[in-house]
């Protein structure tokens, strides 16, 4: 490590410097692709434009392992864990939150295209002004007394999930001077085995902040990062009620075979 490490919250560099770093990395990736290297489908953990990653990424390559025993199964979730109303983020307080009401719907699939049924989906997000209910978020946008920004649901037999929420705003952060995150919703997902566990972020189509954001750009492959962008669907939009967005999630794997999967039985208490 040659250069001294900058504090992640120093906002030391301006957007032009960070954007140049982003472009340089992307050019390197394009050259590697042109030379026959495989596409990268996950973010780079070593991505210096995201300053707080500098001291928090493994420097040794991940060790290949064949999943064993417990890793080939997943914790079970069901209606003991999640109430049906937890998928509606607009009714958690005494009134309607401000902002664009939206329906968000999609499916959780495994790498073979099979639905992941009866599993836990958790989301969290900023309010329509781009403010999180978190003591560390102190930027001077208003909190909304009618919006917490946390939702959960259990996927249906076809792997489907649906939330009713409001569209989050962009929010400023201190990665660099004048850094703004594109509007996004955080997702936490489980599959049928532990190896499929994923936390990610969903974005909105056409966001002008995409090229400027080191978190989005840490996925250096254009096709791969577009997998995080929801699709606006006017057929899902309800008249005088809510805009409709769709976003499907594909988990890695599974490593366990279908036969063993069946023998093990049902996940959760939703899949009957």
């Amino acid at each position, binding site marked *: 490590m040659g250069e001294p490490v900058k504090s992640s919250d120093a906002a030391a560099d301006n957007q032009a410097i960070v954007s140049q770093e982003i472009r340089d990395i992307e050019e390197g990736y394009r050259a590697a692709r042109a030379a026959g290297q495989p596409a990268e489908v996950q973010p780079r953990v070593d991505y210096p434009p995201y300053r707080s990653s500098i001291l*928090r990424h493994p420097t*040794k390559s991940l*060790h290949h392992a064949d999943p064993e025993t417990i890793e080939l*199964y997943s914790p079970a979730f069901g*209606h003991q864990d999640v109430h049906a109303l937890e998928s509606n983020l607009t009714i958690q307080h005494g009134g309607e939150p401000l902002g664009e009401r939206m329906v968000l719907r999609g499916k959780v699939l495994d790498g073979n295209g099979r639905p992941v049924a009866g599993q836990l989906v958790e989301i969290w997000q900023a309010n329509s002004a781009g403010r999180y209910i978190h003591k560390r978020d102190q930027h001077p946008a208003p909190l909304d007394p009618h919006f917490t920004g946390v939702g959960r649901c259990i996927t249906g037999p076809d792997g489907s999930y649906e939330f009713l929420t409001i569209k989050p705003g962009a929010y400023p952060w201190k990665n660099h001077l004048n850094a703004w995150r594109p509007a996004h919703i955080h997702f936490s997902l489980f599959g049928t085995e532990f190896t499929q566990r*994923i936390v990610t972020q969903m974005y909105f189509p056409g966001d002008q902040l995409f090229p400027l954001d080191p*978190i989005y750009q840490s996925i250096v492959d254009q096709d791969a990062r577009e997998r995080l962008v929801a699709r606006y669907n006017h057929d899902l939009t309800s008249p005088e009620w809510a805009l409709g967005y769709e976003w499907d999630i594909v988990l890695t794997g599974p490593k366990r075979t279908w036969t063993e999967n069946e023998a093990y039985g049902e996940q959760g208490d939703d899949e009957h």
Partner: protein
Amino acid sequence: MSTEKPVSTEKLTPTPGQTVGPFFGYALPFEKGGELVPAGSPNSIKLHGTVFDGNGAPIPDALVEIWQADSNGNIPNETGSLVRDGYTFTGWGRTPVGNTGKYVFSTVNPGPTEPGKAPFFAVAVFARGLMNRLFTRVYLPEDTEALENDALLSSLEPARRKTLIAERLADGSLHWDIRLQGEDETVFLDFHAEG
């Protein structure tokens, strides 16, 4: 299941991960998340340690999840981790670290899932600044023969192997630190050839 569908052999490309970010604290942690069994209950043990960055500084905004067999080596298939009833062992727990980077689980020693297998906890680590979740394992230190024969451990150099084995303290607890970077960097696992 009678409605077996033909299985497509076509593989879909996975959705990329992203960092958990700084603001998961009001969303992902839940009451008794780290208490797979009630703290202090008979046969309960404490699994605890600190998450460190590449400068050896504790990370105050990380999240740790464990998934394990019960003390007989059986793999749980019980719902109710998020709303614990105090009796059902679900095998899964989640806890954020504190301001000093420390995490604590109250649980039981996992048993061997097959005779002679080295028992371990499966672990997932999340943090602000960490672009994607990391998988690892922490093994119980006692059954040295099983540890010797373990496929993963025996594929590692001794210095790296020890990052995956907890230390049993005099109070019966298991101590295990997670180092995201640096000389004693924890071994993190790739199950999918993600590179």
